């Protein structure tokens, strides 16, 4: 992240360290992850120990310390989705993208993740691509969604 960009975020939060969480969220929103260099720069500018920033950044799942893909593919593995075959969908996606949950494809196109319930159990099993919900998912449907995600074929939910 450019230093000027970081400066703008910090200015927004009056350089107050109690706004650290919000600052991290803003960095993540721009970069899609928290780059180490940016965190080190942040520690310097706020005069905070890097250990404290790192503690916060690793505590919340919303943050990622590794680069994420252009598309975020999330499989719900909550109880209802699990019963309705979320594991199969996850398997299919793992095989297709050749990554495990939490990882990103080498071309930085896709990041695969799991979530433990989104409260939309009536739609189980649920697949979310770039924050668009796709219910009643099947492995094959997931693959075609993935391939045709540019021209979204589903009605969503």
């Amino acid at each position: 992240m450019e230093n000027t960009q970081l400066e703008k975020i910090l200015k927004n939060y009056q350089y107050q360290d109690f706004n650290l969480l919000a600052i991290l969220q803003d960095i993540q929103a721009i970069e899609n992850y928290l780059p180490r260099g940016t965190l080190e720069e942040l520690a310097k500018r706020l005069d905070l120990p890097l250990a404290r920033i790192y503690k916060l950044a690793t505590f919340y799942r919303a943050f990622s310390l590794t680069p994420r893909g252009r598309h975020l593919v999330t499989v719900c593995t909550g109880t209802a989705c699990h019963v309705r075959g979320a594991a199969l969908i996850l398997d299919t996606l793992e095989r297709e993208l050749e990554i495990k949950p939490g990882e990103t494809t080498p071309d930085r196109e896709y990041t695969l993740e799991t979530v433990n319930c989104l409260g939309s159990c009536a739609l189980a099993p649920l697949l979310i691509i770039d924050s668009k919900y796709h219910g009643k998912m099947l492995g094959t449907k997931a693959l075609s969604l993935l391939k045709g995600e540019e021209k979204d074929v589903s009605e969503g939910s």
Partner: protein
Amino acid sequence: MSEKELVRFKIDGLEVEAERGSMLLPVALDYGFEIPHLCHHEAVSPYGACRLCLVEVTKNGRTRMTTSCTYPVEDVIEVSTDTDQIRRARRLLLELLLARSSRAELIQRVAKEAGVTETRFKAVDDDCILCGLCERVCREVVEANAISFVNRGDRKEVAPPFWDPMACIACGACVYICPTDCIKMEEKGDERTIVRWKRTLKMQKCKSCGKPFAPLFQLNWIIDKASLPKDFYDVCPVCKQMG
């Protein structure tokens, strides 16, 4: 400072008094009550991680079990340090601790005193019980802020940021305070290593006796923090005393 305000309450029937704002565990220990504890140390703030210092606190006729190290003393409470319920809870905790850190002598001893010799849980043998003493001493006392808790839940551990111990001054405070001895320090020649954090630093040689006595990085750090003269640590403390 305003005058110290005292509160009076009872521990196992004994009338005790303590300064308002102090925590129950150090007060009880001062009065000679034996309460096992692993994550408490007078030098750092209370944290309530090991939960071994459980007591029962009765207030307004209601009794509840709580960790005494994080319970601020109050007027008219009644504290029981040794009831069947506490013993049962403590035994379970000790079984869990044994499963996690079976090699730690202190845990073995505390467990034995409570009548626990084996655990029904699967052994992990991590040695670190996540008591947070090292992290607190590094942050609050040394103020080096080299290590912190990272991750969460079953992946929680104490570590330097990005596993790069660049802020560690290898002072050994974490080595000293660790209740399970899982942080080791080694000195070879003129190098000191904190094994767990993978931090190796070159040590300053004393200009008088020639023996290496402390990491250079640490001494410069102290000189910087305390605005000491640059040659303050040219000779080791032993030679300094004699000279």
